[in-house]
């Protein structure tokens, strides 16, 4: 026990120290935030009342946003399901192709959708096709990784049995492994779909179609009443997707059988997907500069060493450090705020109306895209890394609260009831029964969020909230591929390092 306690204290202390250093580095100053808190409502106040007459003009861009995310998620997941077995150690015996594939996936995983979309617009021209391509690649990278991890921890008895009967490996995979991992795969796809709806809402910022184009335009023309309309309609769409995915999740878990309306809903979803796929506008190559893709690749192979070696605040090391610090501080702040919100939002611990209220709040928070939060918070704390931290914190609150609440709602409550029958008071039960049981789920949710935030933090630069995004997008828009390539490589290296560290943290505890 002594050793475990010491180890825990040491890890905790080191994390705290890291947090303090990162907070200092990003200029976190809560007094500054508090003294200027009145400005938090600035933009919201100007959004009221929203201009409802603008709504009809939103239908097409919203559909296009939904289309990008639906099609991209479906294509990416399908691709991932095909590639994942090649990456998993227990199905693919040859180590070399496996490692090459894994490195490739890990590299793709390091980029936020916005950067992927920007790159796609250079190849496929402006429009929804580029956005769809970006979402597809993003989903593919994330899903492949999650799926091969699932395959590696899945029981393979049935697969071996089929193989021993002479069934070919692909057939055995489809018949014996896919059913094993199907449930968790679908859960992951639904998660990604929700995330992708939010992502695709801002892809218009770089010209990749969807409602983001309008959002960007209205914000730069200061037409905030229209921005309000857009955000409300986005809230409605996100709400719909969440309801759908919650319903599908209960089906997957087998808690409920589909009723008559449910049975009609599944084909409807399929039709929607197909409609999205076939109504997608094709790529527009008319403005594509020849060999763009080749030049991008050559930029990756010929990094700009001067940028790497520069030691001042425009050097690669500094920028990466700032991005990492923003993500770290933001995630930590978000996690601390999310836990009580999640406890209040769980129907198991709180009366239903209270739980619904808090769930509504967290839904509203997460339906507002990252960049919009950035713009809102920049009014409060001015341009710089601190705004980035706050933005990351707010976005983490939205998503972590949801994850935490789900963890609480699927928890085994028998120990809780046992302590309750012994007369232990609720707060003590929370501390000694609920939290220890929740800890693994909370830890993995926070680590996952940190991983996502590292990428998100690298697009904050687009609104002036610090991090590596501004120089990256600047370099890409100026076709400076060797500089862009260098930054991309740096980003990939950082995400790789953090990934290794977090999987170690997960294993140790």
């Amino acid at each position, binding site marked *: *026990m002594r050793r*475990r306690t010491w180890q825990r204290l040491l890890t905790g202390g080191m994390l705290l120290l890291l947090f303090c250093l990162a907070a200092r580095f990003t200029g976190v100053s809560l007094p500054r935030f508090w003294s200027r808190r009145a400005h938090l409502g600035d933009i919201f106040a100007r959004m009221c009342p929203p201009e409802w007459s603008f709504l009809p003009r939103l239908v097409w861009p919203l559909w296009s946003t939904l289309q990008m995310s639906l099609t991209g998620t479906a294509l990416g997941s399908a691709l991932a399901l095909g590639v994942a077995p090649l990456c998993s150690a227990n199905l693919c015996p040859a180590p070399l192709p496996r490692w090459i594939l894994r490195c490739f996936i890990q590299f793709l995983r390091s980029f936020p959708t916005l950067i992927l979309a920007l790159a796609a617009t250079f190849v496929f021209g402006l429009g929804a096709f580029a956005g769809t391509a970006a979402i597809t690649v993003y989903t593919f990278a994330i899903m492949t990784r999650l799926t091969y991890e699932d395959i590696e921890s899945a029981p393979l008895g049935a697969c071996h049995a089929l193989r021993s009967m002479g069934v070919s490996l692909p057939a055995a995979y489809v018949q014996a492994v896919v059913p094993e991992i199907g449930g968790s795969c679908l859960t992951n796809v639904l998660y990604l779909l929700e995330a992708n709806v939010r992502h695709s809402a801002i892809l218009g910022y770089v010209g990749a179609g969807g409602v983001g184009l309008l959002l960007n335009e209205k914000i730069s023309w200061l037409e905030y009443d229209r921005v309000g309309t857009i955000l409300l309609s986005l809230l409605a769409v996100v709400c719909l997707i969440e309801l759908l995915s919650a319903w599908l999740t209960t089906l997957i878990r087998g808690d409920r059988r589909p009723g008559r309306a449910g049975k009609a809903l599944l084909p409807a979803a399929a039709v929607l997907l197909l409609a999205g796929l076939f109504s997608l506008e094709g790529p527009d190559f008319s403005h594509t500069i020849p060999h763009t893709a080749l030049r991008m690749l050559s930029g990756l192979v010929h990094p700009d060493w001067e940028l790497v070696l520069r030691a001042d605040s425009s050097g690669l090391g500094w920028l990466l450090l700032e991005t990492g610090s923003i993500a770290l501080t933001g995630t930590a702040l978000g996690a601390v705020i999310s836990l009580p919100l999640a406890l209040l939002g769980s129907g198991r611990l709180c009366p239903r109306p209270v739980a619904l209220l808090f769930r509504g709040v967290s839904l509203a928070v997460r339906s507002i895209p990252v960049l919009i939060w950035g713009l809102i918070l920049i009014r409060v704390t001015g341009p710089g890394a601190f705004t980035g931290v706050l933005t990351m914190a707010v976005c983490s609150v939205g998503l972590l609260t949801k994850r935490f609440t789900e963890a609480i709602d699927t928890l*085994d409550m*028998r*120990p809780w*009831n*046992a*302590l*309750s*029958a*012994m*007369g*232990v*008071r609720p*707060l*003590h039960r929370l*501390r*000694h*029964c609920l939290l*220890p*049981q929740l*800890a*693994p789920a909370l830890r993995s949710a926070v680590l996952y969020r940190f991983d996502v935030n590292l990428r998100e933090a690298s697009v904050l630069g687009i609104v002036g909230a610090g991090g590596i995004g501004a120089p990256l997008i600047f370099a890409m828009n100026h076709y400076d591929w060797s500089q862009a390539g260098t930054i991309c490589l740096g980003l990939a290296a950082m995400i790789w390092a953090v990934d290794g560290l977090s999987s170690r943290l997960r294993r140790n505890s």
Partner: protein
Amino acid sequence: MTALEVTALSKTFDHRVTALRDVSFTLNVGEFVSVIGPSGAGKTTLLRLLNGSEKCSGGRIILNGVRFEGARGRERRAVQRTLGTIYQDFALVENRTAMDNVLCAALPDMGLLRGLLGLYGRKQREAAASLLDRVGLAEKREELVRSLSGGQKQRVAIARALMRSPALLLADEPVAALDPVTGRQILELLREIQRTEGLTVLMNSHNLALATEFSDRLLGLRDGALIYDGPPEAAEDMLRTVYGQSAENGT
């Protein structure tokens, strides 16, 4: 001396499903009594009413001279502190150590802040350690519960229940999730502790043979009604009444 007096206890769920009707019995101090009956007879409901996890729809529960059935909040917790319960599925916090789980039973006696910080006293730690020794887990004190076997988990649960030095120990199918050999060992341990400490135990079981062997008295439940209260020796006849037709179907 009576430890528990139950009078005309009944429980109806949602005004429709009757789980218990008009159940009355008494437990004497130092008795080991088993409630037997087929699944769905209301055994678990009875125990949940007795430990305050569920509110009864009618009747009276008197525990050591204190009326319990209507108590709420602080008052209810005060009575619950004198109870220990062990469960079929152990109900332990899986990713904490055996010691931590046993110490949880000391929480009701601690102040809010000390309890939150988990600052257990030296006496409480010693008591928990000696209870773990008592149930034969001296070596496993610092192991995580999830790495223990089913029998070991139930031993931890017994230690946790004993940590409250309960006036009444309730056991809800304590061996149903264990293999026969381990189950017998657990019951032997329970019986031995009950004898030496003079503990009052009320156990649920659907295993008539084990219940007959280990109890001083049997209570038979069927469809929520008490249909037998007497020595285990007469159990043979009771088997037919309690289990009805299902006895012939190989139960």
